[in-house]
């Protein structure tokens, strides 16, 4: 039979599944890096997080009688990103609770993939931060790179160590600030050999993954450049005026700026559709992040900055260009 379909007839071959699996591939270097820096437990927590995200999604779609779409991989990404946001020293149920909240409350009740207002992984992190603040901020361990340690929660050889950002927040005197500004610290931050959340430490590995997505066109570099760039410029100005004690390179390499700016702000669902909107989205997020870091109550502001900008997306989307020849 001859089938008649309306134009367009050329398919780009891109679909949700393809994009999602590319993002998972792009996150793999950082995941391998996390195992290298923090041991097998990093992988264990990530797998737990992914599994609970998938199971939550499956059960929700089953119970509500929707078409099951768990194979499209979007829940896997949420699971990985959520695990990347917790300390390797967390109890096993922490990523499980976070994933369930992320998928159930932040994603599925809003209508599932494509309808969620907030990035599910970040909403899950905000939930964990509000519910178990001590587990989310007080259990950092130093990376023991190379020596792949075991799965146990309290690693005997793992030394608890404050993250660079919490040192900055504590303001423990001139020598600490000097060590934060040292080239050695910047190098450690770039390669990832510092304490922190599972997936956020290595700027290099995250950049490799993100570069792949930018080339493929599955993430917009404008958001990332706007976000990381505005953090660099804003904290640079503050550094020049001696308001910020640490240099702008420290600000963009430390904490979750790379993870957030490259993988979470660029989430296709929760970012604006227009180019101009994306620049504003990234820029606003960067400013909020620096404000929280320097004057807020938390050492890190990436997650809240992106969540706040997520709320502006519907507003930014109204700036769509006028239809040519359309009525005013």
């Amino acid at each position, binding site marked *: 039979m001859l089938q008649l379909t309306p134009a367009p007839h050329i398919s780009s071959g891109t679909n949700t599944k393809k994009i999602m699996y590319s993002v998972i591939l792009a996150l793999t270097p950082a995941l391998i890096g996390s195992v290298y820096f923090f041991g097998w437990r990093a992988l264990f927590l990530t797998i737990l997080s992914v599994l609970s995200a998938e199971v939550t999604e499956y059960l929700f779609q089953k119970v509500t009688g929707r078409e099951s779409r768990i194979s499209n991989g979007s829940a896997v990404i949420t699971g990985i990103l959520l695990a990347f946001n917790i300390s390797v020293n967390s*109890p096993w149920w922490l990523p499980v*609770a976070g994933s369930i909240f992320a998928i159930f*409350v932040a994603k599925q*009740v809003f209508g599932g993939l494509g309808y969620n207002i907030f990035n599910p992984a970040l909403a899950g992190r905000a*939930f964990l931060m*509000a*519910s*178990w*603040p001590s587990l989310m901020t007080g259990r950092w361990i130093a990376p023991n790179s190379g020596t792949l340690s075991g799965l146990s929660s309290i690693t005997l050889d793992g030394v608890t160590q404050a993250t660079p950002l919490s040192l900055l927040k504590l303001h423990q005197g001139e020598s600490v600030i000097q060590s934060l500004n040292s080239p050695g610290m910047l190098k450690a931050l770039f390669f990832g050999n510092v304490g922190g959340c599972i997936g956020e430490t290595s700027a290099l590995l995250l950049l490799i993954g993100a570069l792949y997505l930018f080339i493929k066109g599955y993430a917009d570099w404008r958001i990332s450049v706007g976000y990381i760039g505005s953090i660099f410029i804003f904290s640079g100005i503050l550094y020049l005026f001696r308001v910020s004690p640490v240099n702008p390179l420290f600000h963009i390499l430390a904490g979750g700026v790379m993870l957030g700016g490259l993988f979470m702000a660029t989430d296709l669902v929760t970012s604006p559709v227009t180019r101009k909107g994306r620049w504003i989205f990234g820029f606003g997020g960067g400013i909020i992040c620096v404000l929280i870091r320097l004057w807020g109550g938390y050492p890190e502001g990436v997650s809240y900055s992106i969540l706040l900008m997520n709320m502006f997306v519907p507003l930014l989307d109204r700036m769509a260009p006028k239809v040519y020849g359309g009525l005013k």
Partner: protein
Amino acid sequence: MSRTFIDGIIKNNLILVLAIGLCPTLAVTTSAYNGLGMGLAATFVLIFSNLIISAFRNIIPDNLRIPIFIVIIATFVTVVDYTLKAYVPFLSVQLGVFVPLIVVNCGILGRAEGFAYDHSPGYALMDGLGIGLGFTIILFVMGTIREILGQGIWLKIPGMFSGFKVFGEAFTNSSVILMILPPGGFLTIALLMGIFNLFRRK
């Protein structure tokens, strides 16, 4: 008349359907005991304000009705406030400013304006009972959910009973603090509304 009573609990449920009187609902349902106390206090005010307003509905002038409603409601709120202070001082401290605020609870004013003012005292009484019971049930359920998840205990009565440890010691020590914070209130109310609508549609 029994129809009015049942409608008050389900079809006109103050929180899940009419969505009025949410302020005390979100604020005091951090524990089941607080929710129950608030629900009963509001129910008392609701029953008597409905009854009095309905009885006097023919002499209350139309253009002065709202101030008169408020005065009648405030009378019963004062009664409740002093009773709580005298007999359950712990609860009175826990509920705090939200007891005097029952005066401006739009749920109670809403029923006075929307029901009692144009129905006979018998119906108004049944409406007050039904609405009050519906309100109390939801407050108690919300308090139960938030207390169990947020503190790991159930039915803690300050100064008298330390509560049941529902999921054991380990859960109590690392409970979901978010649930007793304001976002937990919004989440619980939203989920209850969703579930309620799911069953009502069937």
